């Protein structure tokens, strides 16, 4: 990490927050639009252009911006290496950005990139290709038609082609993936992710030395808190909810995902692991203490004819574990919307997940009807779901159930939904002691009437800009 402190001082004020802008934009667009589609690509390109971010590959006069880009990247590594969640977020956004930049690279540049980056891929012979032609064509979505003769095909150990084989986008035979040139970018991203992940772990270990530099300390702390936002793991409001409030809170202030879990728990007196995690951590986030949680789950499971001793032996350990009282003693944080939408989809017998993402539109419609949402509202919600704007759909649900025109926030966490709901219902008097994090709600006038992804993005960006002022001082020469 030598030289970092002097470089930090000479950084132009624009580049560091800019990169975070870009990463945040990447994240938002990734949720609102299907990655890789034309719409996503053009929105991303427009957003990057708007932020005046240098992304064209090898233009010499772009040296300065690229240098700053590199420096920013390394400083962000310092900020985001500090926890598993932060690392995962950072890696995900950097990968999306790299994928985009690669997609606009001209084809001849790809070959030279492969050679330069020392990725040892061997192209297979014509005969080998011919033997497997049908299979390779049938496996690759990027090959349009039988033009395999013009393509190089690379034979790679399957484990090196993770992003391709997991989605069955490549032909596998005897432990090898047969990858056409067009798909090689996925492999490169894999390598990138592995290297970045290792680098972040290494950075985390050297962090104590860097943090002792008092010029960097406040910057690093500020960065990771502002740009990731609240994770609702701090229990400032622990013990302010009583168990008998939960039933009514579930219909009034819970987001649909948690409302559904609560209902399933009450009806079946049981939830499977995925549901227990998602719902249990949410309850912790709204203020349930460990004792309350144990009582809550036990009461319900016993109704399902579970033996109290079996509960104590099996389930209570897990509950204490999720509160950080066992094993690794990590205090697990409640799941964010992104996490719920993107990971661990529900299967047969599960009730977790995001109803907007994981339910059939028909069944979602019925559910919304049972919640007494108006037909107009339902149809707006279903449209948003069709456009994969799941969190915006949930915001719409909020507006309908709380009778407001504009929910006034950009939803990214179920506990945020709860907090905002309580605020509306209690006329401004929070259950939570803490104040709202800097990056969330703007006052009504800056948000548009039609709640869509770009307005969410706009409000996020404007709040980021407000924050930026403090940071500029760190960098001006």
């Amino acid at each position: 990490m030598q030289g970092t402190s002097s470089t930090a001082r000479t950084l132009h004020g624009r580049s560091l927050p800019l990169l975070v802008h870009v990463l945040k934009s990447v994240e938002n667009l990734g949720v609102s639009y299907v990655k890789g589609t034309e719409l996503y690509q053009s929105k991303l390109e427009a957003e990057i252009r708007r932020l005046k971010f240098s992304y064209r590959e090898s233009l010499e006069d772009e040296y300065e911006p690229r240098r700053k880009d590199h420096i920013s990247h390394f400083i962000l590594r310092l900020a985001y290496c500090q926890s598993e969640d932060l690392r995962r977020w950072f890696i995900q956004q950097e990968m999306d950005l790299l994928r985009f930049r690669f997609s606009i690279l001209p084809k001849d540049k790809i070959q030279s990139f492969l050679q330069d980056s020392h990725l040892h891929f061997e192209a297979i012979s014509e005969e080998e290709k011919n033997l497997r032609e049908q299979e390779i064509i049938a496996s690759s979505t990027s090959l349009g038609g039988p033009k395999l003769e013009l393509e190089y095909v690379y034979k790679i150990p399957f484990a090196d082609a993770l992003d391709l084989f997991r989605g069955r986008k490549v032909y596998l035979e005897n432990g090898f993936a047969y990858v056409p040139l067009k798909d090689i970018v996925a492999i490169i991203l894999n390598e990138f992710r592995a290297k970045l992940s290792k680098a972040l772990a290494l950075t985390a270990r050297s962090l104590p030395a860097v943090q002792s530099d008092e010029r960097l300390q406040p910057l690093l702390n500020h960065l990771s808190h502002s740009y990731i936002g609240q994770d609702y793991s701090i229990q400032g409001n622990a013990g302010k909810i009583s168990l008998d409030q939960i039933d009514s809170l579930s219909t009034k202030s819970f987001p649909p995902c948690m409302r559904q879990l609560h209902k399933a728990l009450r009806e079946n007196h049981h939830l499977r692991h995925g549901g227990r995690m998602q719902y249990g951590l949410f309850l912790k986030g709204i203020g349930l203490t460990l004792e309350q949680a144990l009582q809550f789950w036990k009461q319900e499971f016993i109704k399902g004819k579970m033996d109290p001793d079996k509960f104590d032996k099996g389930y209570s350990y897990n509950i204490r574990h999720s509160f950080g009282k066992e094993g690794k003693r990590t205090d697990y944080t409640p799941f964010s919307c992104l996490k719920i939408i993107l990971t661990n989809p529900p299967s047969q017998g599960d009730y977790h997940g995001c109803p907007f993402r994981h339910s059939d539109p028909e069944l979602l419609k019925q559910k919304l009807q049972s919640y007494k949402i108006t037909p107009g509202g339902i149809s707006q919600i279903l449209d948003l779901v069709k456009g994969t704007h799941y969190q915006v759909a949930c915001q719409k649900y909020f507006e309908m159930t709380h009778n407001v025109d504009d929910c006034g926030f950009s939803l990214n966490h179920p506990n945020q939904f709860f907090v905002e709901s309580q605020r509306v219902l209690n006329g401004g008097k929070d259950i939570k002691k803490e104040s709202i994090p800097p990056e969330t709600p703007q006052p009504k006038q800056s948000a548009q009437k039609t709640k869509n992804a770009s307005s969410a993005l706009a409000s996020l960006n404007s709040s980021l800009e407000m924050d930026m002022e403090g940071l500029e001082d760190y960098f001006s020469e």
Partner: protein
Amino acid sequence: MEPFDPAELPELLKLYYRRLFPYAQYYRWLNYGGVVKNYFQHREFSFTLKDDIYIRYQSFNNQSDLEKEMQKMNPYKIDIGAVYSHRPNQHNTVKLGAFQAQEKELVFDIDMTDYDDVRRCCSSADICSKCWTLMTMAIRIIDRALKEDFGFKHRLWVYSGRRGVHCWVCDESVRKLSSAVRSGIVEYLSLVKGGQDVKKKVHLSENVHPFVRKSISIIKKYFEGYALVGQDILENKESWDKILALVPETMHNDLQQNFQKHHSSLQRWEYLKKAASQCPSNIKNEKCGPWLEWEIMLQYCFPRLDINVSKGINHLLKSPFSVHPKTGRISVPIDLQKVDQFDPFAVPTISSICHELDAIFTSEAEKEENQAESDIKHRTRVVGPSSCGMWDAASASPDEQCHVHAQDLNWQNPG
């Protein structure tokens, strides 16, 4: 067969662990030739004892240590976990964060309960010979992919003891795979997606991947017997309505009417196939042609894996030759050459084999008793190519594994 009474377990297990549990082969397997130092010693086992007492982080010095401890503790259930960085039974002495799971076999758990939405004969923990075909198909489909697509050579399939099967993939390189790659493998092998809230759980794209195509060929061999005759999925309106939910609405009227006219699931299925291939394919998002037929077959027959079992390197899974405390059945290996004939109800229970042993003991000389013991042991092992391959994997260097096994056992093709 002698009826199994869970109350007798303590006595039965005592006998089982003294006379019948195959310690030598078991140790030879998990020791993997002793090539890597302390590989066996760093392996986690967990025991479930009488009264549901559960102890983790058990580990042993060698075969004799394992034997002694098992005989002393008489576990109701044994799970195998990962190979750790240190001896699991000393993990508390290790600096925080340094005790890590490093390697483990790639495992799969296929459970009949996950098919409740598509089987009509049973639900929950129950199984019968009619729905067992689901496991047969699952084994064939998954095993083919593990062998032909991924190139895995040492695959052991085991009956779980009640309502499903497990697979242990033991290749050296596989034991080192990261959690991400394991998840990726499960994803590759998954086609049925969605919970309660999703009616249609299989969606095929126009491009059909070779994995999917080959899986469908396997299902086709069983579909008529299993789904149309055994499960009778188009028997009556109640059952065929479930199939119609998977088919575009525009076809419903026609199908409803014609189903009434036919007399068997077989006939109705033939009609459905014809109707599907004729329906106009210019309707966006509406699948017709063979895709529709395949999607239905897959939803009813394709294996359903639990990703959580496979992805974690530290995940504990029931050990082969463990006894199922509720059914008394031994978790025996399944012979891949005879998968179609495997009958879960013919699997020896701990009562039946102990009873056999007892019967012989009371009337014959000790020499014959030992012979009987090894007979029983042999039958319990249900020896087959890849299960033997697993045992033999331990005795040779990684390169020789397949040769040793083929030589010893006179088979043409290993695994």
